[in-house]
């Protein structure tokens, strides 16, 4: 019997260690997502969301968001405002074509989850926290962002809104 103890222990350790390398669930972003921003005037949305979404409520440590948005896809509903938003005065889409978010940690909260990470916009990286929920394979979150923090037309702080509410709704599939 004794001769089986070490092989058995080894098998148990190998089997247990298999669970440590199980990855969080990888999700594919569905087409009907929405990334809306509301600053009164202007308000609008971005399309062109892509990246990797790896999330498991039971494995927050192994979860990861690494997503980006194409700045050129901004839509305020007005062609003239879209052109202005993409110009060097505002987002400078030619020089900074994407807005990128990479998560660093997730925490469980009373109402859902929070993700901390770096938002890279207009060449400025800032740490932000985004509260979100995950129900029926839909990530939904809302947070505020100040364009002045990212040097977006900081020469004119009172030109339009300076703080925007961003609403995210991202359905995902396996």
């Amino acid at each position, binding site marked *: 019997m004794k001769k089986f103890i070490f092989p058995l222990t080894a098998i148990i350790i190998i089997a247990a260690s298999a669970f440590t390398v199980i990855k969080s669930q990888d999700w594919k972003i569905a087409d009907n997502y929405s990334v809306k921003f509301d600053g009164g005037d*202007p*308000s609008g949305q971005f399309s062109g969301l892509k990246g990797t979404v790896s999330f498991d409520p039971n494995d927050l440590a192994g979860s990861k968001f690494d997503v980006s948005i194409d700045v050129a896809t901004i839509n*305020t509903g007005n062609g003239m405002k879209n052109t202005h938003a993409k110009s060097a005065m505002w987002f400078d889409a030619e020089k900074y074509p994407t807005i990128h978010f990479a998560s660093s940690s997730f925490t469980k909260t009373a109402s859902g989850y929070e993700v901390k990470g770096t938002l890279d916009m207009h060449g400025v990286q800032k740490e932000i926290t985004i509260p979100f929920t995950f129900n029926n394979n839909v990530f939904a979150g809302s947070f505020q962002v100040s364009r002045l923090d990212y040097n977006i037309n900081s020469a004119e702080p009172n030109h339009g809104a300076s703080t925007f509410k961003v609403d995210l709704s991202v359905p995902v599939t396996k």
Partner: protein
Amino acid sequence: MYKRIFFHSLLSGILAALACIIYYRIYFFATEADFSKVLNTFSMTGYSIIICLIAGFIYWAIVKWIKRRGEIVFNFLFSILSFAAVIIPISVSLPLDIQFPELFPGLAVPMVFFPVIAWYTVQPLFIRATAK
């Protein structure tokens, strides 16, 4: 007199609506940009006829108020207002699910002038009767 002005307005409105519908079709054929959520046959017909009927009412009031030069004043006013109305399609924010909003002014700006063009086009048919 108002009967003549009413028919002048109505005919102008119908002509302007027809021009809008034809131009919409041509624009859609050229760009494939779909703005049917904000502009369709019913709304274009409605806007054109309402604008021309309102113009007719203003014309009637001005001609009654300034008898000799009323027509000149009205023509100036209608042209200036039509030109000023260009700002509406340029500044309007469309629903976010409409693609290519930058193409909207190309569609709607010319339409702003259709009522005034239609008004002047049919004016010779009614001008003598109004002058009487």
